[in-house]
């Protein structure tokens, strides 16, 4: 298993290489660059000279391959460069913003799994019953509506109308209890809920479908023939088998949840990777664009790897040597 993980981690390198090349080319295909706006500032007398200096200092006058390999060279030394717009090392910026996104994504994942798996299982147990029909309808509805629509709806209901939860930021500024646990949780709930809703619906459907397939399996009949009772059969035999495809899907979605947070972070003014990468793109902040994209790519790839590892634990028929 350990050798498998190492091999897989090494296998990520060529993939990441290709991803960064593509991002690099696309990034330069965007019109303008980070410093061009200076030229159009009427109050700058020597705008052209400043512009030329900045372009030269940041190596933007060199050919693309040279620029790319400079970036790679620095990356291998652990240096992601300095953000043009924020004037701070990219690594430092990521270290500041990443934990917020992680917190948001992990909370959303937990909400998704904790809520959807029991619901899906219960639906499958009482298939076509009133609960199944109603909750299936709601699930399909949730899944068909984009997350940011829910975000606005949640803000309207829980913040604006009933004033139950705050709608922006990570803490309440300027109060004595600013930043304590309850304060942070209350700020986290709304964006996490908005982020989890479509996934929640999807995973409920997935759990329901998988469980329905397992419930009619021969070994479930065997379990009943052994005299086992409902809950034991449902959890030990049905869920234990139904969860395997869910784990596979979970790994694939993990990276998606990160990028899914991009829009929601804007809506909730949540200072996370989404905000960072959107600003980086708007400002043509090349080092920051590359740094954030690299990180998104890594989360997707790590998610896949994590799913494969978890699968091996969940399903004894899968063995990696």
């Amino acid at each position, binding site marked *: 298993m350990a050798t498998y993980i190492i091999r897989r981690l090494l296998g990520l390198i060529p993939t990441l290489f290709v991803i960064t090349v593509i991002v690099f080319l696309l990034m330069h295909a965007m019109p303008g660059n980070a410093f061009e706006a200076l030229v159009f500032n009427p109050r700058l007398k020597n705008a052209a000279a400043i512009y030329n200096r900045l372009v030269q200092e940041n190596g933007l006058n060199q050919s693309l391959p040279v620029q790319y390999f400079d970036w790679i060279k620095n990356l291998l030394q652990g240096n992601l460069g300095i953000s043009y717009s924020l004037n701070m090392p990219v690594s430092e910026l990521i270290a500041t913003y990443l934990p917020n996104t992680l917190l948001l994504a992990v909370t959303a994942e937990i909400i998704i799994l904790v809520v959807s798996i029991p619901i899906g299982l219960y639906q499958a147990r009482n298939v076509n019953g009133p609960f199944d029909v109603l909750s299936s309808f709601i699930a399909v509805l949730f899944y068909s509506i984009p997350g940011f629509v829910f975000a606005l709806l949640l803000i309207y209901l829980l913040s604006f109308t009933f004033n139950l939860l705050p709608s922006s930021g990570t803490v309440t500024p300027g109060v004595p209890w600013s930043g304590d646990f309850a304060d942070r949780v209350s700020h986290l709930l709304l964006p996490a809920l908005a982020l989890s809703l479509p996934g929640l619906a999807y995973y409920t459907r997935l759990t329901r479908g998988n469980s329905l397939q397992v419930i009619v399996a*021969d070994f479930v009949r065997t379990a009943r023939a052994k005299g086992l009772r409902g809950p034991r059969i449902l959890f*030990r035999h049905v869920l234990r088998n139904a969860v395997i495809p869910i784990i596979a899907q979970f790994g694939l979605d993990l990276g998606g949840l990160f990028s899914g947070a991009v829009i929601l972070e804007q809506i909730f003014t949540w200072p996370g990777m989404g905000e960072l990468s959107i600003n980086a793109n708007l400002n043509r902040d090349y080092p920051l664009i590359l740094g954030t994209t690299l990180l998104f790519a890594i989360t997707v790839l790590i998610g896949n790897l994590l799913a494969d590892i978890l699968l091996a634990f969940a399903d004894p*028929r899968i063995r990696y040597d």
Partner: protein
Amino acid sequence: MGGALLEVRDLKTYFVSKQSTVKAVDGVDFSVSQGRVLCIVGESGSGKSVTSLSLMRLVQGPQGRIVSGEVLLEGRDLLRMSERQMSDVRGNEIGMIFQEPMSALNPVMKIGDQIGEVLVRHRHISRREAREKAVELLRNVGLARADEMVHEYPHQLSGGMRQRAMIAMAMACQPKLLLADEPTTALDVTIQAQVLDLMRALQKETGTAIILVTHDLGVVAEMADDVVVMYAGQIVESGPADEIFDRPLHPYTRALMDSIPVIEEERERLRAIPGTVPSAAHFPEGCRFADRCSLVEGRCRERLPELRELGPGHSVRCHLA
């Protein structure tokens, strides 16, 4: 038959849907005494498997329904028990094994745990004790590697080993009755003989009664004390095995026996019974075998023959017998 262990009276199991009512088991009576082997023989679709599932109340609902009848285990009617009482009987007083030993075992659970589970449920012992007992049970069914095997998963065992493990599981609580639904159909011929020998040996050792459902008359000849021949949801002939083999009275039973290829005889082709079992949704008015019977007469198509006792314990459902 006085002092019967299990007595089945007028058992009817229907599959009801909006479009049709399929009478899979349509009024079946038989009984098994302690230490005897009863074989239920019939083609696919004759209702033999549904009969065995009905005894355990494992017919897949909500379409499958036991409509009427009594299943008396030592005088207690299983069909009138609560689901909870019934679960105390399953795996404890009646053990059951199935046709496909691969799909009948949970693929993600260790063999030892699957066997131990029955003991924990009915004998209320700890999981550790149960696992130790599982080793012993696996040894009793002739698996020499029992101590390793308890830690293995079904996919690591061969078909024959799996069926032995199934038998160990069904026999774990020393049931009074073992229900075997086509236990050897999915196995190689050499393994078939071994599994049948094992069942015989266990039966001699423990005195448990066996109901063996099969379509294979070779298996019947080897195992049966008593035989029930089923056709289209009904019993067409029943009696002691010797009687049935020496003096088959029903044309269907004779046709079944004729369809066994005999090596010494040179035949142009195998003597198959022409036609197929009538659809259980549309049984003909008269004798259900009439369309395939070589001796059919006018009255056969008018009136369904009764099951009549023509010899000691030997009953036949035929106007001509």
